[in-house]
């Protein structure tokens, strides 16, 4: 999908608010959170409970030495719901719910607009829509 950084006018939007699938990948919902969980790899027993409970796709699975294992957070999609530290069987030794003050945990700008902001969701959706238009020959 080609993502263009400009917002669309009423002439460009697709018919009836149709949104192509997969656009949420480009919409970085991490910007909503007030708290952020932190993973302590040394205490993690790789039970994958956090991965199973994460309501988004913020916990990445990576290829480890013995197979697939839990990787770092993708903070672009972590809304700070606090479910993963709550469910962690290591009692906060592996996952901690912290205030988001660490600059390194900032959400990167959404790929659609290049800028974080209120309109970015719509922009992403409508770029998806534009593609839907082309695909379905909608005028």
């Amino acid at each position, binding site marked *: 999908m080609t993502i263009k950084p400009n917002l669309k006018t*009423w002439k460009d*939007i697709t*018919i009836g608010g*149709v949104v*192509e699938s997969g656009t949420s990948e480009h919409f970085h919902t991490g910007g909503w959170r007030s708290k952020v969980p932190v993973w302590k790899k040394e205490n993690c027993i790789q039970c994958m409970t956090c991965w199973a409970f994460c309501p988004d796709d913020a916990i990445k699975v990576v290829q480890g030495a013995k197979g697939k294992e839990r990787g770092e957070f993708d903070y672009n999609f972590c809304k700070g719901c606090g479910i993963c530290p709550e469910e962690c069987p290591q009692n906060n030794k592996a996952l901690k719910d912290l205030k988001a003050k660490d600059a390194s945990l900032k959400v990167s700008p959404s790929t659609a607009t290049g800028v974080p902001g209120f*309109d970015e969701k719509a922009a992403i*959706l409508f770029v998806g829509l534009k593609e*839907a238009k082309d695909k379905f020959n909608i005028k």
Partner: protein
Amino acid sequence: MEKIIVARTGNEAMAEAMRQINPDVCAAYPITPATEIMQIFAGFVNDGKVKTNLITVESEHSAMSACIGSAASGARTMTATSSQGLALMHEILFIASGIRLPIVMADVNRALSAPINIHCDHSDTMAERDSGWIQIFSENTQEAYDSMLQANRIAEHKDVITPVMVTTDGFIISHGMERLEMYPDAEVQKFVGEYKGPYNVLDVDHPITVGSIVLTDYYFEYKKAQREAMKAAKRVILEVGKEFGKTFGREYGLIETYKCDDADYIMIAMGSTAGTAKAAIEELRKEGIKAGLLKIRVFRPFPAEEIAAVLAKAKAVAVLDRAESMSNQAGPVATEVKAGLFDAGVKVPLASYIYGLGGREIFLEDLKNVYRELKNIAEGKSKPEQAKYIGLKE
């Protein structure tokens, strides 16, 4: 082309039109006086005369919801309702037009409760005038049939993609038997054409979301797009009406004028009353009163410029409303006509009337009296009144 002359009620004619269109899906709930349309159509389904998937639901809210699901899945979808049924659909009507689904609905005009009443007026349809649906009124059974055959073409046109309701006057047209010229099934199907929906939510190769939330950022833009579609609908309705005329011999427009060319006094009416007005005009012309009729066939989109152009030469105008808007002003049709005249810079004495609520009969003499009142107004003998009730017990 061979024409099949039959005797049909309005409901039968609409059901026959639906049989010939052979939609993929119909979802409906019965309500007087529209029940017969789907009842007759259900017979066609049962007899294998159509391939339609008929969905019986538990309410009109569900009927329109099922229509939306069906239309969003790439199926040509139709339904029928009336009065309280249309009112119960209210919430879903805006969704159908907002997500741009070309559903076609037969609506039989009936008064809204309370008091509970099953007879004709336009209050049900007028209450949905801002729902984003195209609204086409019928003067008689023939028009109801003809407009139903044009509705899919209008709704599905790529520049429009907006739902259409075709209305008849409850009992007066819906249950009144008239001479109807039908056209051969094959010719109708050729005219209506293959369905090509705007999108298909069941296309697994191209998954999409329909009905997503759009807030302050783009909701406004969607409404503008809908408005432009309504603007385009005026052109498309005329194109389809013209092609219908070439194919079947009866051309349709946004409005119909009857003896307006030299008319001093013009009445505006919609639905079956237009027929009564034509008879009144014939009699008045014999008395030397130059009377004319402007029938509004398409209320949404509203043909304001076209109406203003016709009224520009009139000495006095009467607008008849078969609905109350309880605004202490004129009824909904007259209010829109006045706005159109103001925009066009046409200044003409205009009297507005409310009539026929809850099926109150409108007589030839009532309409002749309206023209006589217009004459008095034009001659300065009286002032035009607003929302004057015709035939009220007082």
